[in-house]
């Protein structure tokens, strides 16, 4: 449909939003060439030189490989069988498994890190203490503050993303392909090796790349488990560079490292998207293929149930229970008859008193403001991309997606620097809106992705009928398109709210006394050694996050869109 002049405001919002998203990404390169106080720095290539020569950086890079590769391997080693078992066998309780997977996805990584820290810290870890007590060992058998500790917890944490990529693909495998194999005389094992596995390989490859990118760029678990024994990876190094106790934070150097990571990450993410797209075409011959049959587990049922249960025990059960235990006692003790008697809800009851109202207010402001702002910006962008013939629209769509390929820590550096630079004109630095602004950049693409899909399903003629009936384009968007977008808008609103609620990395990077939010509060209390308080807030955060997620799922299931043409 031809773009009418009345659509100028819509186009303007879309373009401005795209530029807003693009600016911090491009700024990373700009900052990398600067040194000195933000706003009055001087240009230099020293930062990139240092990237090439600095031994600290090299060690961090090496650690990143040592950490990222095994993590990816382990995560995929768990995710592929789990996804397979859930999508292709008759294992009971699949709904529950999927739900628990979503919970693991939602829980901030550092909450899992905290839990395992309490269990396996060499000095105070509960499991260590119990083992030492019962066997008389003088040294703790497990040390979570090591590369292996980090690998262990992070790989558990990265199973859900891979799982949710693989399950739809496994489910979508056309029955015909396998059945042709059986009818050609091959037995189950051969069919699996020669047909199922090759067909699944593109999806597995794509998921592996996705997990690899995450393993190389995530911050939370390397921070919680790496800092105590000074094991640094790329993301934690960037944090340290910008949060040194003395002197000017080295934004330029951080940005230089960050820019390299960003390019790599964007490149790999593009490969991921490409492989996934081609893999989808590959697996289902026609859109109406029959779902492949369910395999009976038989004598494998026991081991399968055990494996799945073990996974959730390690990723969810143990860390959360530990934190709940910690939140109910006045100081860290191993569970025993005496310590059980010290249990109380004091930490919760006194929470407001202990931490103040501010973190709650700030978090509340964020989850109120960010989703609304994101939707307000996303609808014009999606509408322009899907409905118009504007030539730049695909560029716009791609640019809005760029932040998802960029490590959050890198984005945060850019925001930090830019906030300081524009402080004389826009004193937003350090306020809660500063964090909100960063979140908008990060989460805009979640909304555009959902809304893009929803607009595509709204028959074009519904809008054309509106215009032929005499209403202007903007009026048609308001009266016809937006009401029909309600489920997608609600979905985006909820998801963005959830993601903003539990985001740690960026909030920590942009943290200041005035914009303390709940996740950062947990971090601070933890580092101050006030473990029970930290645990209490962590449990509260997790509980609310899971609640929001369940409401979202239920709410969406109940929302039935009357037949769209």
């Amino acid at each position, binding site marked *: *449909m*031809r773009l*009418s002049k*009345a659509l100028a405001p819509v186009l303007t919002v879309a373009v401005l939003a795209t530029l807003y998203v693009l600016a911090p990404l491009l700024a990373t390169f700009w900052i990398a060439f600067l040194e000195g106080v933000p706003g009055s720095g001087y240009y230099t290539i020293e930062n990139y030189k240092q990237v090439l020569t600095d031994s600290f950086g090299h060690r961090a890079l090496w650690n990143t490989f040592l950490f990222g590769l095994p993590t990816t391997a382990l995560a995929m080693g768990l995710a592929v069988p789990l996804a397979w078992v859930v999508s292709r066998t008759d294992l009971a309780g699949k709904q529950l498994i999927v739900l628990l997977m979503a919970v693991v996805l939602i829980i901030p990584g550092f909450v899992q890190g905290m839990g395992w820290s309490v269990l396996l810290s060499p000095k105070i870890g509960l499991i260590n203490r119990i083992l030492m007590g019962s066997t008389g060992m003088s040294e703790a058998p497990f040390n979570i503050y090591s590369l292996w500790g980090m690998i262990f917890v992070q790989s558990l944490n990265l199973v859900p993303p891979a799982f949710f990529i693989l399950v739809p693909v496994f489910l979508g495998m056309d029955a015909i392909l396998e059945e042709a194999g059986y009818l050609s005389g091959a037995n189950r094992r051969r069919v699996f090796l020669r047909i199922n596995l090759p067909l699944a390989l593109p999806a597995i490859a794509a998921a592996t790349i996705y997990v690899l990118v995450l393993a190389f760029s995530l911050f939370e678990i390397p921070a919680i488990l790496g800092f105590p024994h000074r094991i640094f990876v790329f993301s934690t190094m960037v944090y340290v560079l910008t949060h040194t106790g003395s002197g000017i934070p080295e934004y330029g150097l951080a940005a230089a490292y960050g820019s390299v990571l960003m390019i790599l990450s964007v490149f790999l993410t593009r490969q991921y998207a490409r492989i996934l797209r081609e893999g989808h075409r590959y697996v289902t011959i026609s859109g109406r293929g029959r779902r492949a049959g369910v395999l009976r587990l038989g004598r494998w049922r026991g081991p399968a149930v055990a494996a799945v249960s073990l996974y959730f025990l390690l990723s969810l059960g143990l860390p959360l229970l530990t934190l709940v235990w910690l939140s109910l006692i006045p100081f860290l003790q191993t569970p025993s008859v005496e310590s059980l008697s010290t249990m109380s809800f004091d930490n919760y009851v006194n929470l407001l008193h202990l931490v103040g109202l501010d973190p709650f207010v700030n978090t509340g402001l964020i989850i109120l403001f960010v989703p609304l702002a994101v939707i307000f910006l996303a609808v014009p962008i999606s509408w322009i991309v899907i409905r118009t013939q504007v030539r730049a629209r695909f560029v716009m769509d791609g640019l809005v997606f760029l932040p998802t390929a960029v490590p959050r820590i890198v984005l945060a550096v850019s925001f930090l620097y830019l906030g300081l630079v524009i402080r004389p004109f826009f004193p937003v630095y350090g306020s809660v809106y500063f964090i909100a602004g960063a979140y908008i950049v990060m989460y805009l693409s979640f909304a555009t992705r959902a809304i893009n899909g929803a607009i595509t399903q709204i*028959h074009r*003629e*519904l809008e*054309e*009928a*509106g*215009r*032929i*009936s*005499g*209403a*202007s*384009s903007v*009026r048609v968007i308001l*009266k*016809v398109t937006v*009401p*029909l977008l309600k489920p997608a808008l609600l979905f985006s609103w909820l998801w963005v709210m959830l993601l903003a609620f539990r985001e740690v990395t960026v909030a920590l990077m942009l943290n200041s006394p005035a914009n303390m939010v709940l996740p950062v509060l947990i971090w601070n209390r933890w580092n101050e050694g006030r473990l029970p308080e930290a645990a209490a807030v962590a449990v509260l955060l997790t509980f609310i996050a899971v609640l929001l997620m369940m409401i979202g799922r239920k709410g969406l299931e109940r929302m039935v*869109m*009357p*037949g*769209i*043409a």
Partner: protein
Amino acid sequence: MLRITNLAKQFEVPGGQIKAVRDLDLTVEEGSFFVLLGPSGCGKTTLLRCVAGLEQPEDGEIYLGDQLLSSSARRLYVDPEDREVAMVFQSYAVWPHMSVFENVAFPLTEAKRRRFSREQVEGKVKEALSLVRLREFEHHSAATLSGGQQQRVALARALIREPKMLLMDEPLSNLDAKLREEMRDEIKELTRSLGVTTLHVTHDQTEAMALADILAVMHEGKILEIGKPEALYRRPGTRIGAEFLGRTNWLTGVVEGSGSVKTEIGVVTCPLPNGATQGNAVTLGIRPEWVELRADPCGGANSFAGKIEVRIFLGDAVSYWVRVGEQRLMVKTTLADFAVGRQVSVVMPPDCWVVFPEMPQPLAAEPGARASASP
């Protein structure tokens, strides 16, 4: 009422361009029911959408009454919401999140020039719904309606503003056969009684002939033939036109003398196209219902021996495949009934044939011979 001149519209597709409408001229008289007929991809819907303002043509001018809707020369283009046309879409485009009332009232309540009071709107909506016999559904949610009901809502919504022109984009295609016939007759009756000028697009030839005052056959972006349905049916001017309106048996042959052509089945007496001389290659066509079958052998011009190969019972008629020589001819009749295998005489009166010169390229509009007999 509607005057289109030199209209051209093309689309970009991967690999080049598609010229959907090419140098097209069209005039629709006020109050008439004009039908555009053609196969998918012939450009009829594109043409309709250009009139609606949903597509902008590259070239040409469109006048509605004395309002210029679009002109490439004058760089003028009026938005759809500012044109005095109304449209019924193929999918009906009834808004599922609104009630029937809100759907039909939309052009009055949401249009840029809103001049009606609430009472006036209510009155007009009730009136429109009565016209399409949907009064009792006024407050139903539009999502609960059947296909036929949705179509009537779309019609009411289109007519409520008393547009200068009503555009219909294959509105009957998605209905089942019986409903299609009912709605077809209702639409004709409604538009006639209201005196609404209508431009209707379809690929269904029966629908086209039943509805049209004037019928235009479109092919590859151009108008091939235009005229009253009966005239086009009985005396098609082009081979494509003949094939698109009803069925035709085709023979090829060479002109022998004045009025006779030697064909695959023998010598046929028929009228010849202007300027056809001995030795010219021609194509002959005759409709199945004009071929006569007789039990007894008979001589005479255009009488051939044939054998019934297939018999298809259609309810109100019987269709046969009859083998004559090397050819199979389709014959349709209500008069006699023959068993398979029966030998018959196939008689094809001279003035039932249409004859076209055989051209090297199979397409392009070719003027053909028309018999002197009036339609």
